[in-house]
């Protein structure tokens, strides 16, 4: 197989050329990514703090109640003593997911729309953003399900470890693989706003796209990890990180749009 003629390689070259041709969209997309990280931290920080406060209080009360020989963790949490606090905690968690969804859809939808502009496949902003938000309703539901299952399985594994400390966390690992698959499915659904894109793309193309995207990301991560070890000022490290990481995110988006255009392009 001539590697230089595969879609994966030709499209990475095309993507780099397109990015070079559109510096305006590259910069605005990088700024959008930077703003997304800032906004997510700024908006979810206080909510996460509230969750911790309530979780600590609930666990303290649980310890007190369990010391009185009352058993059944879930039963106690939803019992008359703790149900008001558990309800509040659930509401705050729901709020965290809603905020994450809105911030993610607004900023990442915009960044993907900019990537579409770089590839010269122009879509009206309103149409693309609404489609992006609609598709993300499914992905946020998957994310919530993952978080719940992860919590239950982690708790279960801790109990198993008490009896058998060397036992492997098989269920946890399977869940992690499924979650990574969901991330791949989401990544492939964004370019043409098709939720089943992963399943409707030939495996050969999917493997090339995901393989090369993973290599690009891991190389960037390796560079950033080593930059972090350099004896330079922390703020300079942050600036270097942003300068390297944000354009890479744009490249990965443009690359996915280009590769999948061979299979799913609308026009």
């Amino acid at each position, binding site marked *: 197989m001539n590697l230089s003629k595969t879609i994966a390689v030709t499209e990475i070259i095309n993507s780099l050329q397109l990015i070079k041709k559109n510096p305006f969209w590259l910069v605005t997309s990088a700024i959008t990514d930077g703003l997304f990280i800032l906004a997510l931290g700024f908006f979810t920080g206080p909510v996460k703090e509230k969750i911790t406060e309530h979780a600590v209080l609930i666990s*303290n009360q649980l310890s*007190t109640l369990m010391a009185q020989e009352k058993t059944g963790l879930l039963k106690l949490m939803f019992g008359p003593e703790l149900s008001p606090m558990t309800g509040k905690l659930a509401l705050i968690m729901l709020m965290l997911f809603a905020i994450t969804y809105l911030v993610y859809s607004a900023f990442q939808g915009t960044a993907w729309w900019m990537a579409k502009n770089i590839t010269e496949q122009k879509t*009206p*902003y*309103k149409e693309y953003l609404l489609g992006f938000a609609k598709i993300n309703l499914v992905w946020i539901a998957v994310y919530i399900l993952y978080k719940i299952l992860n919590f239950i399985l982690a708790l279960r594994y801790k109990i198993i470890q008490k009896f058998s400390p060397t036992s492997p966390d098989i269920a946890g690992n399977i869940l992690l693989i499924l979650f990574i698959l969901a991330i791949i499915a989401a990544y492939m659904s964004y370019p043409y706003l098709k939720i089943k894109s992963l399943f409707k793309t030939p495996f050969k193309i999917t493997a090339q796209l995901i393989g090369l995207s993973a290599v690009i990301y891991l190389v960037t991560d390796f560079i950033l990890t080593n930059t972090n070890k350099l004896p330079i000022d922390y703020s300079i490290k942050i600036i270097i990180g942003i300068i390297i990481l944000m354009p890479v995110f744009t490249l990965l988006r443009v690359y996915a749009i280009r590769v999948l255009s061979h299979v799913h392009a609308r026009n």
Partner: protein
Amino acid sequence: MEKGDWLIVIIIIVLLVIIALLTSNLDKFFPTPTVKEAVTQVVNAT
């Protein structure tokens, strides 16, 4: 950008402002009960 696109931008900005207001006033909506209040709540309930 078309007229409808600007409307979406305005909606996003309004939503982000609402989220900012909500998160900065979280203590008003979800006051954290002090340990004393929490203990009283459990004692009363039991």
